[in-house]
Every structure is written in C-alpha cells, then in structure tokens.
C-alpha cells in the first residue's frame, strides 16, 4: 500500500494492543511520563502548539478545548468518544484493535493536563468484542503501573447514533435518555455529572503520545498546516481496496480513491464520493483534486468528518442512495427538537416520493425549504447535518432528480 504515513498505526499487528509491555517496548508511555513532568499550563500549550484538532468531526483545537476547563475543587473527567456511529466509519475500532495502549496513554495525558484522575471510554454497543479487549488492555496498563493513579472505565452504548454527540453521550453515561443538551454550557465547564469534562475522539487521544514524545513542532510539520498530523481513513463502496489507511492530512482526495483505493471497482467509471460518513456531502469528479484536511474539505462544501470514504460508481442511483440515507436519519433522530424529529420524517417521505417517480418540482422546493430550516434551527449536529446529502446531491447531481420528476 503506497503512500501511507503511519504514526498511530506504525506497529499495527506487530504488538499486542492488550499488553502494556508490548507497547512500552516500542516506546510507549514515554509521552505520559513527559506530560506528567511538565507544568499543566505548559503541557496544554504544547498540545495547542502541535495544532492537533479533533478527529471526531468538528475539528476543534484539542489544547484549546482543554484550556477552557476550570481547575477548582470539583472532580473533572476525561471522556473518550468511541461511539463511532457514522456508517462506513471503523477507524476508531482499528485504532483500538491495533494500538489500544496509545488511546489509554492519550487519555492519561489529557488527565495530566486537566488534573483529572478518572477517564471513561464510551464504546458503541455494536462492539462488545472491542469492549472486552479494551478492558484487558486497561488492566494490563494498570498492572504495569504505566497509568499511575489515572483510572479508565469502559461504558457501552445501546445502538443510538445520536449518542456520538458529546452531550448525548454524557447523558447516556449518566444513565439518561441519549438526548443532546443545549450548549452552552459546554462539557468543558459542565459535562459529566455537571463537572468539567473533556470529550475527545479516540483518534485525537491516540495522537497525543506521539506529540509528546516527538514534540509539537514535529506533529505540526506533518500534513496540512492548519489541520496537521495524519488521518486514518476507511474506504467503503465501489473501490478495489475497501480497507483502512493512515495518511498525512494534505493527501489528495483523488489519490485516496485512485492510489490507495486502487480506483473504482471492476474498472467502472467514478460517479461520486461521500466523505465523513452519512451526513457528509456528495463530492463529484470535478472536486476530487482537494486535500482531505478539514479546511480544504469545507471550502468545497464538504467535510472530512470521521474520515469515512464511500465511493460510488457510475451505475449507482444517487436518488436511491440519498433516500436510504434519509431513512437512516429518520431512524436515528432522538426526537427532542421539532425541526429534526418531524423534519427527518418528512425528508424521508419526500425522498421516497421522488425516488418512486411520483414527485413534482413542488416537492423538491418543499424539500429544500425543509432542509434550510433544519440546518438553521435544529438543536444538535444531527438535525443540522441530516439534509447535507440532499442539498449536495441536488447541487451536483440535479439531473438524477430531474429525470425522476413528473
């Protein structure tokens, strides 16, 4: 597999992720040692300087997020978002299966930065085997003494996509319905059990040991200047190599599809690629010459998101795919706010009508209106992003809709 740059996955399949000693032999837990020897503020500054931005989708500067946490008498928590609910995304599972100790070390580094002794990993309910493995990995790390007095507990979700949203995730850990909270207050100020809480993605945490051992400047020098580092991508759909890769963030999308992905399966022609999971925009051929980093993707109206790359060949029916996507959001809406609870339902109805060749231009107009209001007024990212596949396909693949309109 040409052109990868492996940092997090360098020792994939060469070490046993459950065993802290294996990890220590390849340099593991040195980063934590360094972090603990540093002043808290200097540690946060170092992470800020590395430019590390969230790998869970929103791309927020990790060190900046930590710096908002007030240090008072109360407890503080480090929460790892391992909900990984975006269809087509499995990079967090790969990171855990190949290098779980790096995640644990990263969480403990965050613990050192915000003076927290307790971490939680919220793992999606569909990964019971990974939960088992993680628990063994935590035990090994605790037994080896590497984690010191930092404890990590694994909590399991029950199959709700919305629980990947950080405040719904917190509600779920607390034992409540998985519904997002309004923000502010942000988790950094009032999160788990109303205490200051840092929520980061698995991949974000897993970068930290390498930042600490190799230095912020080293990390900042990899990939795109404004979204540095590497990114683990997971390829699905009509590509030859439907597997995972770790690449620098200035990697080109066209190369993801054609070099890493080995091109469209069966020699067919390319039609579209959806990046970042089900809420990502559909990207047409003419936009493939874009770097995969957060800002470059935003500039073309798309998003890097979780790093899922779903390739569609020329035979795929875009309207049919978007109809299926609209069913997904109808199913996953938590039901808390009006625009999303009702809107995802009506989006699905209108999409089905279009797909069945029974819709008119008026239905498309209503769909666009609904999409606008959901983006403007839904409570959380789920409802705000649910119409993106619809909008982006209406923009780039309008002819696929027109030919089904009566």
């Amino acid at each position, binding site marked *: 597999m040409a052109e990868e740059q492996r940092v997090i996955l360098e020792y994939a399949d060469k070490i046993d992720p459950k065993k802290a000693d294996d990890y220590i032999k390849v340099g593991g837990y040195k980063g934590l040692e360094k972090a603990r020897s540093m002043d808290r503020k200097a540690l946060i500054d170092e992470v800020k300087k590395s430019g590390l931005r969230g790998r869970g989708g929103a791309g927020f500067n990790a060190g900046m997020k930590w710096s908002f946490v007030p240090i008072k008498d109360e407890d503080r928590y480090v929460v790892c978002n391992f909900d990984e609910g975006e269809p087509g995304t499995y990079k967090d599972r790969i990171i855990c299966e190949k290098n779980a100790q790096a995640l644990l070390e990263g969480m403990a580094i965050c613990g050192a930065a915000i003076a927290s002794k307790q971490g939680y990993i919220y793992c999606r309910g569909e990964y019971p085997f990974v939960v088992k493995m993680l628990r063994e990995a935590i035990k090994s790390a605790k037994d080896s003494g590497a984690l010191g007095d930092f404890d990590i507990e694994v909590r399991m979700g029950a199959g*709700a996509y*919305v629980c990947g949203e950080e405040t719904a995730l917190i509600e779920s850990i607390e034992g409540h*319905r998985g519904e997002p909270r*309004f923000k*502010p207050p942000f988790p950094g100020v009032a999160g788990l059990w109303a205490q200051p809480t840092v929520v980061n993605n698995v991949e974000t945490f897993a970068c930290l040991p390498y930042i600490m051992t190799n230095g912020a400047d080293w990390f900042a020098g990899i990939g795109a200047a404004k979204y540095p580092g590497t990114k683990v991508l997971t390829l699905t759909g009509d590509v030859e190599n439907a597997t995972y890769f770790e690449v620098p963030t200035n990697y080109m999308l066209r190369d993801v599809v054609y070099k890493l992905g080995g091109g469209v399966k069966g020699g067919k022609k390319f039609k579209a690629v959806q990046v970042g999971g089900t809420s990502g925009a559909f990207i047409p051929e003419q936009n493939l010459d874009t770097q995969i980093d957060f800002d470059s993707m935003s500039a073309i109206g798309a998003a890097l998101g979780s790093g899922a790359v779903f390739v569609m060949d020329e035979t795929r029916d875009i309207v049919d795919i978007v109809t299926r996507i609209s069913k997904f959001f*109808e*199913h*996953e*809406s*938590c*039901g*808390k*706010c*009006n*625009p999303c*609870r*009702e*809107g*995802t*339902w*009506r989006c699905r*109805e209108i999409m089905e009508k279009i797909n069945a060749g029974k819709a008119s231009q008026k239905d498309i107009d*209503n769909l666009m*209106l*609904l999409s*606008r*209001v959901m*983006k*403007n*007024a*839904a*409570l959380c990212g789920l409802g*705000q992003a649910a119409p993106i596949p619809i909008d982006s396909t209406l923009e780039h693949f309008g002819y696929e809709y027109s030919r089904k309109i009566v």
Partner: protein
Amino acid sequence: MLKLTINGQEIEVPKGTMLLSACQQAGADIPTFCYDPDLKLAGSCRMCVVEVEGRRNLLASCVTPCENNMVVSTESDRTTEARKVILELLLARHKVECMTCEKVGMCKLQDYCYRYGVKDSRFAGEKGHFAMEDPNPFIERDYDKCIMCTRCVRACEEITGAQAINVKERGHHAKISTIFDGKLADSTCVFCGQCIMVCPVGALTSKVSMGKGRSMEYDRVLTTCTYCGTGCTLELNVKDDQVVGVTSNRDATYSPVNKGALCVKGRFGWDFIHSPERLTTPLIKENGQFRPASWEEAMDFAANKLKAIKEKDGPDSIAMFSSARVTNEENYLAQKMMRAAIGTNNVDHCARL
C-alpha cells in the same frame, strides 16, 4: 451589564440574562412551546429562535445567554420561515380537531398558526398513531395532539415530584408515556393534573370538565380551595352560574400559596358543588329519620347532649376528631374547646375528615 441591540433598539441587561428575557424586555413577543418559567429549560421546540448577526445558525433564545454587542432580530425572514415550517411540521402530524377540542382559545398551536398565517401544511403525509385509552376518571390523554414540548414531564417531576411520565421511543415515534407505556393509575401518578396545567395544546385535558364549556364561554373566578388548610388558590370556571371546571392561576400575585399547583381534590373534586345530594341545612335524627333543622336548634341540641354525657360519664368519655380541611386557627379552637370547655385531652386529627 451587557449591551445588546434588539430589533434596532439598544438595551442593557445584567450578565447571565437569557436572550428570550432580553428580547421580551425590548418589547418583542417571542413564541414558545417548551419554555416554562417554572421549569428547567429544554431548548427543544425551537419556536423561540432569533437571528443574531454573525451567527451561522438561528439561536434558541430561551437557552442562549446574552453576550455583549449582540445584534438581534426577532422577526427576520429567516426566523419567521423557521417558525412557519415548525408549525407546518407539527400540523402535519396533528389531529386537527379544533371543532370539538376542549383547548380552543387557550391553544398555543392554534394561536401561533393564526399569528403566522399557517392554514395547512406543505409536509402533510403519514400521521402519528398515538391515540390511547386511559380509563382513569380525571385526565384525557390524546397524544395525537401532542407537540412533544415535554412540559408535562418536567412539571410532573419538578413540581409534583411524581416522575410518572417520560419520553419513550425516539424520532417521530417518541411519545409521552408512563413506565411500560401503561395507564396512569398503574404508575406513580397522583392525578394532580399539573401536566394538564402546563400542556400548551389539547393533548392533556380534564375528563371532569369535558364537553361542559370552552375557555371563551366561561368566566374565571379566583377562590380558595376548601379541601384543606393549605389555602391553594384556584380558578372556578363559571358558565351560566354553574361551575364547569377548575383551572389554576400560576401568577404568584394571585396564587401566592401554590403558584397554580393543585392536588387531585382541588383540581378535579369540584362536582359536589352542584350535587343534588348536597346538605343545605343541619339535620337532626329523630326516630331513625333525619329532619332538617336550623343552625341554632342543631347547636343547642349538640351542646346539651355533650353536657349530659359529660355529667353522666365524665369528660374523658368525649373525644374530638378535627380535620386538615380547616385552618390552623379553627384547629386551635377545636382543641381549646375540648380542653377548656369539656376538660379532656382526647383531641385528634384525621386528614380525611
């Protein structure tokens, strides 16, 4: 103090003020469904969205803290578009039954559809199927009219403390339900009707008042509940000189004791008022038969009997049960009469008398 510009008007508010309150202070009338000043914030109905310059999305004003120099517009094209679409979305699933709905005239959905000129919905499609039979004598639950504001859930938990209801399922299948989706009588419900009080639409209504008159037909007469000494204020709904229902007034100036909260007796137990079985004079039993008597005669009769018993068998052969339905002062007088006039300590109390 923070400085904001709301609909072109400059206004100063203390730090911590929510945008909704600032907008109201600036004279804006912001529509809300889920907001309730006595309950925890939900921020979920999204009717109160306003446009703030420089923000990509509209902000729900009830849960957005004011920030310095915000420039806010409360009826911009984007906000009215969002509110209209939300109303249309709610209407698309609503059992539109205004002709016979108990809530007509006090229904927020109706009011806002009127205000924004929403006649029907561009999103009409499938409807919900949440109709349910709950054979309790007090509360009609018609969730085909529910707009999922969760005010009932919060009132039940925060005002009454019963936690009888919550949200079940998700997405558009979400609905208000007791544990295991059962009947109120099988839950921790105490039938206080606080849920009816806060429901902004016709989803929760009183079975006791059903069909007896709607808000524009009756007068509201403030009075004090006679069931106990707490002294809750209630509002008799009076139509053609008949009490057709009880509602409550949530304004503390009128309802200082209970701020609108009532118990099952106060809210639903008013049908005795016009009952033909109601006693209107004292009765004296003679030869196994009751006959009407005047108050003077009845009082003398009771006093003489008590005196006779006391003389024959002593003061401790007499006891008195007083009641929670009378005031502290009356209860004081009751024990005083027993101790001072009769001469016994046999005084007790029963909440059910």
